[in-house]
């Protein structure tokens, strides 16, 4: 099952040229770009591993693409995403976040039902990948 998270998640995977264009857009807005990766695809997992520090003071997408390429090469079987952080007062948050790399095989999620008091059913998602310990997920 294809993971859909962040901006553009229902589009086909972006090509490098398209990723560059998005980075250019973010840089044009003055946002700081960061590259992150994880092997825990749960939608509530907001804390991905940082690939280096967020990049401030960049003018061109080539610098970010360099990090994306390096991160993909080092973590080929993990999810990699780009975050664009807006430091403007009042925003101070991530304005744009999208996946730029995913593992070859994505087993997807299982729906878990827990019966609660009064026969209420509580639902949660469980990623099949996380059954294995970190580092051994996704082959």
């Amino acid at each position, binding site marked *: 099952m294809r993971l859909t998270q962040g901006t553009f998640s229902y589009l086909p995977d972006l090509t490098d040229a398209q990723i560059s264009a998005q980075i250019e857009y973010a840089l044009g807005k003055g946002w700081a770009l960061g590259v992150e990766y994880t092997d825990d695809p749960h939608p509530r997992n907001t804390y991905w591993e940082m690939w280096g520090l967020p990049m401030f003071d960049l003018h061109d997408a*080539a610098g970010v693409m360099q990090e994306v390429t390096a991160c993909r090469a080092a973590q080929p079987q993990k999810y990699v995403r780009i975050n664009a952080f807006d430091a403007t007062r009042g925003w101070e948050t991530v304005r744009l976040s999208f996946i730029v790399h995913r593992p070859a095989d994505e087993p997807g999620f299982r729906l878990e039902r827990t019966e609660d008091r009064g026969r209420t059913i509580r639902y949660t998602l469980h990623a099949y990948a996380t059954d294995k310990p970190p580092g051994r997920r996704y082959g």
Partner: protein
Amino acid sequence: MGDAAPATPPGSRRIDLRTLYADSEIGPLLAELDNDLVGLEPVKRRIREIAAFLLVTRAREQLGLSSGAPTLHMAFTGNPGTGKTTVALRMAGILHRLGFIRKGHLVSVTRDDLVGQYIGHTAPKTKEILKRAMGGVLFIDEAYYLHRPENEKDYGQEAIEILLQVMENQRDDLTVILAGYRDRMDRFFESNPGFRSRIAHHVHFPDFADAELLSIVEKLALQAEYRLSEEARVALRDYIVQRRLQPNFANARSIRNAFDRSRLRQAMRLVEIGAEISADDLVMIEAADIRGSSVFANSLPKSSP
């Protein structure tokens, strides 16, 4: 910049260099360069050559002739204060308008910004700077400090290797300009042949002549809305001759500093008068403001008033 249609042989297709020239806005830029920078004839000629070459490369591209990205890395050599940084800034503008770099900004660094203090510190530091310079020009001042032949464990070598790699593989992403004194740069290139071969343009900045330094001050004065009196001009001419004989003469930089100090002396003189003054008094720099310099104190009495 589409590919040429395969139907027409490349020899028969035509392109108007003049329209290309007009489109690139390079004309005004070069005119500006001629107007704003005094002297530096060999440098200007070289820049015009580079600009023409870039224009032709672009025309070739449009006609579908092979034109692999030209190597644009440059080395600027010359004594201090001969305008290397100023020209580098202009260069970023020229390359940008010709479309060879995407952003046209200049990142100016020295050894401290590239080389780390301990093992494993250099590579991230250098890469960080390179990332920042992507799409623009990386200007490395006094580049020869990167290489310390007396210490083979020096981390400078690591920075050099990363630089060389990026200069080779990401030629279209950034342009590197190295700057420094001529003799030391020559020695630097001798011990790092990789650098020499990756740099296409070696540009030497000659020292300024006395008359050129004088017109630099006049330009500075004009910009700052000051005027030099006739006597002040004579005094300045004497000053330049004297200053050149002293150690640490840094061409235009020394002269600019001298001009700034003469503004201080002018202010002091006006305050000491203390009476009503006119706008003319406020703009006029007199000979006394220049002759007050310590440069004259050590020189022969004949030139003092």
